[in-house]
């Protein structure tokens, strides 16, 4: 790994170099009813629009590689013939400016399923290959439990990863492209002072985590607790609305529908993201529903994240970003559900509000 250090004002210069491409980054999207900022990823047109001090965005950056709806194929139909056109989405490069470790780890996990599996998804791969990612160290908020999931730092999947050292950035460089760009701004090799400062900042970050999930032997415990009443307790709260899956950076389940245009001359095959918590997720031809209960659907969502994926890839599909819990109106959070399934009560800091019934 190559490390560099540069003054804070150089970041704007780096932005200008990269901004010949489309730039996506964290922006202020609004404020909540307590006047706290709400952030999201969006196309950015000026360095000043970036909210680099952001805490976890409301929605994940997933849609930039896995849109909520996408036409997989378009068919032109006439009297006797039809022609299929596939848009492989050969897009121009997108620069992600300031992505936290959890979200980069999430993309790495999606790669395992959508890029490295037996059936790779071409549109996904093209978007992934066209990404230039500048990672950014974060300050954990109360919803974050990435440290428990081993995703509070990231080893690969970015071009450059920045840590804020007050008046300068400490940069980890992991691609030739990133190295070449840094040649064009004023930067230097880190000295011992920078290194001590970097270590102090990361240690301070680690100390800030307030939420934990006990993941030891979790696959086995989930197996043993298949009939735990905890599933019913949380299932009763579940609204079956799919919000958790939609804000999740790693939920990739989808459905496909075919439709014919009103003029009967065009047809579409469309992929849309779906959620295992929705009522008809496991409904099959003939109308039988394998998972008619909210509690069962909720359980299987946890099974996929924390058991099935671990057995397939030796790592959890959850990155601990806490978005699902923050977005869930019913206040269903992974730290609390997992603690309950393990037979422990869990106090999650900063979330008392949702439990003061």
């Amino acid at each position: 790994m190559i490390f560099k250090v540069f003054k804070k004002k150089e970041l704007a210069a780096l932005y200008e170099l990269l901004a010949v491409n489309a730039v996506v980054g964290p922006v202020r999207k609004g404020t909540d009813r307590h006047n706290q900022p709400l952030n999201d990823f969006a196309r950015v047109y000026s360095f000043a629009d970036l909210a680099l001090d952001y805490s976890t965005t409301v929605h994940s950056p997933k849609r930039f590689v896995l849109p909520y709806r996408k036409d997989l194929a378009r068919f032109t139909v006439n009297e006797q013939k039809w022609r299929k056109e596939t848009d492989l989405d050969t897009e121009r490069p997108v620069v992600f400016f300031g992505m936290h470790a959890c979200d980069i780890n999430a993309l790495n996990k999606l790669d395992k399923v959508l890029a490295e599996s037996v059936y790779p998804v071409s549109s996904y791969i093209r978007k992934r290959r066209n990404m230039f990612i500048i990672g950014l160290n974060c300050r954990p908020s109360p919803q974050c439990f990435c440290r428990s999931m081993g995703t509070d730092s990231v080893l690969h999947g970015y071009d450059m990863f920045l840590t804020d050292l007050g008046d300068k950035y400490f940069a980890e460089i992991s691609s030739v492209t990133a190295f070449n760009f840094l040649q064009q701004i004023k930067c230097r090799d880190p000295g011992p002072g920078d290194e001590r400062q970097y270590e102090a900042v990361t240690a301070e970050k680690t100390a800030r985590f307030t939420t934990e999930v006990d993941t030891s032997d979790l696959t086995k415990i989930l197996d043993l607790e298949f009939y735990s009443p905890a599933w019913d307790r949380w299932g009763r709260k579940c609204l079956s609305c799919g919000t958790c899956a939609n804000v999740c950076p790693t939920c990739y389940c989808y459905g496909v529908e075919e439709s014919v245009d009103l003029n009967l001359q065009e047809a579409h095959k469309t992929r849309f993201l779906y959620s295992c918590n929705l009522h008809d997720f496991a409904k099959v031809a003939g109308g039988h529903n394998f998972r008619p209960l909210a509690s069962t659907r909720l359980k299987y969502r946890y099974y996929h994240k924390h058991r099935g994926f671990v057995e397939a890839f030796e790592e959890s599909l959850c990155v601990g970003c806490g978005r699902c819990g923050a977005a869930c109106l019913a206040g269903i959070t992974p730290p609390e559900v997992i603690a309950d399934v393990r037979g422990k009560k869990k106090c999650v800091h900063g979330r008392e509000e949702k439990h003061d019934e």
Partner: protein
Amino acid sequence: MADTLSYLGVPLSRPRVAFFELTSCEGCQLQIFNNEASLLDFLSLVEIVNFREAMTEKSDDYEIAFIEGSISRRDEVEKLKKIRRQAKVLVALGSCACFGGVNRLRNRFHDLDWVKKEVYGDFPVDTAEVQPLEAQVPVDLKIYGCPIKKEEVERVISNLVLGKAVTPPEYPVCMECKAHENLCLYELGEPCLGPITRAGCDAWCPDNRRGCWGCRGPAEEANVKELEKIMRRYHFSREIIIDRLECFGGFAAYVDKLRAPGRHTHG
């Protein structure tokens, strides 16, 4: 307009379609004439033989009947039964036809004579408790919404013509709202029935920063009990909850449970 339809060389028949209204604002029928860009394609898929709001000609020879509005008078029951005898497919168009709609608010007054006196004074009218269509006749298909969404009607019509199944979403509005990456209205301090209301509107109201009023009725699984707790946690009063749930009639069964006995507004 093409006289014959075909898809991939397979001939399709243009269904003979009629539109009727019972007690309603006729706004859903007006929606049929929206989306001008696709209106001609829409009209070429069907043969409209009866549509008081749009044409003079009237025929009782139709296969599909779209009925807007709820039943609020005895003569409407007769009209509805006559349509049912003729139509192969009877479609309830909009919230009034599906649930009774806004008209159903009248049912909260137990003493209808008092209501008539308040509204009509000394001019008595024949009026009864408001009912959705399926209280009197079997309904084959429901198109939800107040008003209906034209895009959904377009899908329904093209599926009917092509012989494909017509299925409204089972999931609630949240699913569509989140896919548009809206900020949750609860976070912004507004009540919303999105978590329990059937989707298909493409999150029309939340997209415009207005909380959902549940015009499309309950989703296949509607956890009203939990949403009631959530609304209280966000400091929305019982009356706000009941008002929202009651407005379009889709949640009438839940409102009856929520409203304590003896708390009716009058009667």
